[in-house]
């Protein structure tokens, strides 16, 4: 990568600023995400607009701290309004959020257009709150936002344990004496501040993405809150950097929406491909498990037929194999081919037979099935005609250790509840 573009001072300001905003919002947003309050962030973001306009009307200045003061006060009002509506009426949280966000935003638009139409020249720039104008960030902004971001992250670190407690188990937190109410106020205030500064980068509508999308992406990679927070911060910062670089490379491109698109790609990529929780990962795992079960069942079929005919190594045609058990022919062929690769079966002309190895595997499945049936009848007192289905599933799951335990517990039995032999 050509690093010479970073010598451009404005680009450094902008990307640094956006990265700080992105990381801060992502860390604070992780808690909104964990507390399932993701959309409240959206409401706060919309509610910031009237505050910004009001503070401009009152002070006739665009100093970042005054704007922030207005933003924080109406942001807080939105949180309180949502709480009040949910507490005092039969409306649910989602309706309360939608109502508060749209009405506050409408009020913001009303004030904004009033200011604009009043012909005051210095007001231009207030509308940057709508879509965010990261590119116009100057060093003054950077200092204010940088300090706020550092303060926010410091508070997150100091109260980390308390925030985790109130996010996961608020009753437990209360019981062990965490000042829950105060902690909630601190956390909500941090959210409001993160929103108020983050809006500079992406604007009102897309702010929710800066809060929750990095957290959602991070959640797919870890089960630890601390790791999740740092990962979210990294995702947030990286997408901030990507957004500012894209709009630097193509100046007509808006920074904010690109940040959101990049962060969404992180999230959707994680949702699909993250090991453990990703959709594709789980799908592959399920397919593999289904294939294993199918192969087990085919070997079991060979074993059963061999048992009946007292000839385990007879070669059998596809139609022989599909007679008894409900295998689809396609599935059967697929299974036989994969068993061929592991040397569990042999192919002779158009017929198939099991090898020594295949026989042992088939026998093991049959043994587990019958052991389990015996276990269910003897220890769980389930009627012997009710145990087959359960055994059909568990036979694929029992581990060698469990197998040994079962054998010892049942004292190496010779026959199952249906009086068929248990093979060893």
């Amino acid at each position, binding site marked *: 990568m050509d690093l010479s573009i970073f010598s451009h001072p404005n680009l450094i300001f902008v990307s640094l600023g956006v990265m700080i905003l992105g990381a801060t919002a992502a860390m604070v947003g992780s808690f909104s*995400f964990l507390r*399932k*309050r*993701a*959309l409240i*962030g*959206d409401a706060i973001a*919309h509610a910031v607009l009237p505050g910004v306009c009001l503070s401009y009307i009152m002070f006739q200045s665009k100093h970042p701290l005054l704007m922030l003061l207005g933003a924080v006060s109406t942001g807080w009002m939105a949180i309180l309004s949502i709480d009040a*509506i949910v507490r*005092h*009426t*039969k*409306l*649910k949280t*989602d*309706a*309360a*959020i*939608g*109502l508060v*966000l*749209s*009405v*506050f*935003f*409408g*009020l*913001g*638009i*009303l004030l*904004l*257009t*009033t200011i604009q*139409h*009043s012909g005051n020249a210095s007001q231009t720039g207030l*509308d940057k709150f*709508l*879509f965010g104008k990261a590119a116009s960030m100057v060093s003054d902004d950077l200092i204010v936002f940088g300090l706020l971001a550092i303060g926010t992250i410091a508070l997150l670190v100091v109260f980390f344990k308390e925030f985790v407690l109130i996010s996961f188990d608020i009753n437990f937190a209360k019981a062990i004496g965490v000042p829950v109410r105060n902690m909630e106020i601190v956390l909500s205030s941090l959210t409001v501040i993160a929103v108020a500064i983050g809006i500079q980068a992406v604007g009102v*509508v*897309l702010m*929710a*993405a800066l809060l*929750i*999308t990095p*957290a*959602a992406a991070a959640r797919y990679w870890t089960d630890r809150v601390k790791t999740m927070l740092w990962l979210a911060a990294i995702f947030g910062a990286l997408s901030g950097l990507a957004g500012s670089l894209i709009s630097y490379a193509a100046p*007509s*491109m*808006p920074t*904010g*929406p*690109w940040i*959101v*698109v990049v962060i*969404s790609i992180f*999230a*959707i990529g994680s949702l*699909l491909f993250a090991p453990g*929780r990703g*959709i594709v990962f789980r799908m592959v795992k399920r397919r593999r498990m289904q294939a294993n079960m199918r192969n087990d069942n085919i070997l079991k079929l060979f074993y059963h037929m061999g048992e009946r005919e007292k000839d385990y190594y007879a070669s059998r045609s596809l139609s022989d194999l599909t007679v008894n058990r409900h295998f689809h022919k396609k599935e059967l062929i697929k299974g036989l081919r994969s068993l061929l690769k592991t040397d569990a079966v042999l192919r002779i002309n158009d017929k198939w037979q099991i090898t020594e190895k295949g026989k042992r595997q088939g026998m093991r499945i049959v043994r587990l099935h019958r052991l389990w049936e015996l276990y269910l009848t003897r220890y769980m007192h389930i009627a012997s005609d009710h145990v087959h289905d359960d055994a059909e599933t568990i036979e694929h799951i029992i581990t060698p250790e469990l197998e040994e335990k079962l054998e010892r517990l049942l004292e190496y039995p010779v026959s199952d509840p249906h009086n068929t032999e248990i093979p060893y």
Partner: protein
Amino acid sequence: MELDINSFWIILTGALVAVSCSMLGSFLVLRKMSMVGDAISHAVLPGIVIAFLLSGSRSTIPMLIGAAVFGILTTYLIETFNKKGRLQDDASIGITFTWLFAIGVILITAFASNVDLDQDCVLYGEIAYVPLDLWYLDDGSDLGPRAVWISGAVLLYIFALVYFAYRKLFITTFDPAYAAAIGISTMFWHYLLMSSVSLVTVVSFESVGAILVVAFLITPAATAYLLTEQLPRMLTLSAIFGVLAAFLGYILASYLDSSIAGAMTCILGLEFLLVFLWVVLFKPKAKMKKLSA
């Protein structure tokens, strides 16, 4: 201030949009899907822009198709992220709509030179321009503003939907399990409702904009819901609140010289605030009911 013919057209458009929105919104509020409605109203943006680019004009039909496609896509994505991706529902709503909206904004900027749509217009609409865009016949005579006809047609559609499918909407809203048991596809009505939301959103784009349409969807319905527990009464009341806001909002806007849509939203908020205070302060019975429920 004087009410001339232009004011009449603006108020009429606002009222038509308000009634469509508040009737649909009643179902959203009752189904606890207000925020899905919010998400759709944002997420149809790329659909509209793409339709715009492909058709090269601001004609309504391609836009409606584009929006309906993206409305259904949004609903589908939210469900997939939630069910298959195991993402909690509020986050899957938030991620889906911000992502699609961002793409829409990028498309607008990228093709700004050949698209006559601008961000501000999309965001908070410009109902004040409604009387300027007339529907001309071949012989040169005009039939009044195009927007009035379009919002009127959509309102008719919503009326027809609610009238003819009332029972099915009712059952799938209040007792989806029973609906499924008697063979009504909850899935179908869910998607139909969501595509209707995208339809209404597009029509509202030209008048109230992408964000304030949410106010029209949720606020009158929520206000009416505080006052009654009967669906027909709730539909009527919410429509009345909507129309009232369109009228008073216009007056407020011309008094303040501000955005008309913004003013209408403020009136909607005010209506809710008054009803909220009235219910909370003077109807302790309603509160008791909630506690015992």
